[in-house]
């Protein structure tokens, strides 16, 4: 297990290293001169030259990369071009707010999704099972941004219960904070729950046909003990993988949801950076997201290996 963990950790580091080169070179070929963009199109040649000198843009590309990557390793993400502020705290704050959104959502997705999946799995073919299946089909097919808009129409426009945009910190009162976060979280959860519940349902159905379930029933155990103590543990192994995939989808969804609800997280910051062509912010932002994504995948793989010993030994070498 330790060897496996170390090997996976090395892969993550390698991916991040190569990604940093890729991100750096992609932003290098971005059209338009960076210095020109900073000073604006009416600046004189001297001003452009001064900025080029200050940012050392005339150095060879690999030196610029090494300087940037060196800064990253020391925890210095550079300065935002448009706002001329250090990126570290800016991205840190944004991540903290996005993490609240993501954390709440993934916990709710796991709890609700697994519950729905188990519920409909053990009631296979009944009316409530079919109702949940059709419902989840529907939820998978509706894009997040459309849910978001429908939710705003209903809860802000029609009922007037919740604010449509913005953010309040905990200091401004719990209810104030909650009011702003309910709609974004609900939107994020809506699509992903269907994912988890569908997978849990099919794996639950498969598990319930296993012989040890029959054996447990034959022992005379009550059905809910059979489900909780015997079936659930094994049925949930594939769910862990799908939850990891969902973390990736969630990060995409967060970009959309934060934009719709003007929630000041990392997603909105990135959209802002791309609209403003704020190169350092784009680079740092994408790299940070990649890192978070890689680490969450790592966590999922480790959990999976922990629950499923076959992976620990056999397959990891073949991958």
């Amino acid at each position, binding site marked *: 297990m330790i060897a496996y963990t170390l090997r996976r950790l090395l892969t993550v580091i390698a991916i991040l290293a190569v990604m940093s080169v890729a991100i750096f070179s*992609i932003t290098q070929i971005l059209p338009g001169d960076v210095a020109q963009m900073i000073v604006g199109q009416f600046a004189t040649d001297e001003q452009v030259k001064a900025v080029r000198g200050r940012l050392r843009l005339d150095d060879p590309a690999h030196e610029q990369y090494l300087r940037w990557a060196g800064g990253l390793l020391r925890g210095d993400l550079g300065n935002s071009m448009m706002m001329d502020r250090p990126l570290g705290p800016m991205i840190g704050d944004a991540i903290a707010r996005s993490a609240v959104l993501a954390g709440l959502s993934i916990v709710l997705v796991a709890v609700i999704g697994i519950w729905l999946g188990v519920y409909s799995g053990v009631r296979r073919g009944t009316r409530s099972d079919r109702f949940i299946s059709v419902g989840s089909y*529907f939820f998978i097919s509706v*894009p997040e*941004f459309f849910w978001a808009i429908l939710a705003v*129409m209903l809860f802000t426009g029609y009922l007037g219960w919740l604010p449509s945009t913005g953010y309040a910190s905990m200091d401004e009162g719990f209810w104030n904070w909650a009011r702003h976060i309910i709609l974004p979280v609900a939107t994020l959860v809506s699509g992903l729950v269907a994912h988890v519940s569908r997978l849990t349902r099919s794996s639950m159905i498969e598990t319930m046909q296993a012989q040890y379930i029959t054996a447990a029933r034959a022992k005379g155990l009550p059905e809910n003990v059979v489900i909780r103590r015997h079936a659930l543990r094994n049925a949930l192994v594939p769910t862990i993988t799908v939850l990891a995939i969902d973390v990736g989808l969630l990060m995409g969804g967060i*970009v959309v949801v934060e934009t719709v609800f003007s929630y000041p997280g990392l997603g909105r910051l990135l959209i802002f950076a791309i609209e403003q062509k704020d190169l350092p912010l784009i680079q740092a932002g994408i790299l940070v997201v990649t890192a978070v994504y*890689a680490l969450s995948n790592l966590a999922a793989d480790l959990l999976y290996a922990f629950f499923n010993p076959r992976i620990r030994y056999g397959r990891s070498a073949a991958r």
Partner: protein
Amino acid sequence: MAALQLADAPSRTRTRIPSSLAVGGAILVLVVLAALFGPMVAPFPYDQMDIMARMQPPNATHWLGTDEFGRDVLSRLLYGARLSLLMGIGATFVSIVFGVPLGLAAGYKGGRVDESIMRAIDLVISVPPILMGLLLLSLTTPNVWKTAAAVGIIYVPIMARLTRAVTLEIAREEFVLAARARGERLWYILAAEILPNAWPPIIVEAALRVTFAIMLGAALSFLGLGVQPPSSDWGLMIAEARPFIDTAPWVAIAPGIVLCITVIAVNLVGDGLREMLDPRLKRGRG
């Protein structure tokens, strides 16, 4: 053995058409018809503004109302069908054109080829899909083709991995070994022996990809980095209608519903195809 395999294939596909395929297919035919003939039957040009008729609720002249520039929503939807389908099919096409050969090469050649292709793919999927799209599109001035291409690139890894897995299985079959023993060339083996037998799961996955591509494309356009105004892409229409949802909700709801119906239809077709082409195939989506 190859002939036997081929003779076997049609009998498997001649099974009853699943109802999901029929229903989804019927809806999809409507969407395709709208994409083909929409501009001809649309009551107005998609970009014709009428300042006197801004944000009108649905009425006899404008069946689905008008938007904030007085443009006819129904007409814009009909024009938009073409963009959405282009996006879905174009992106899937790109992912197949690049992904399938890569998967074939990785699965059949193995060794260092396999290793380098798979590592490159790991890299592409190390960025969440929407962000990859944003990153790619931020490099250019986006339009519908570039958006489709960007979405296609995001899905190349999925196609490549699937093709590789299928190829690995088929490459061990006797008819492939026979072809190698006959001394057939590499291209012949890949194109004539392996590919025809690898298609069913690839087609099923492609149908799924069309849905995801339509949704991802719409999301990118919604974020302002896909199809640009004044085009009437459905995602873009929703984004443009957002400031007016209190006064003119139909402008946002109409494209949203059409988008959902299209996605559901393609999903149904995908499920139906899966059921028909390969009853054993039971995969999670993602």
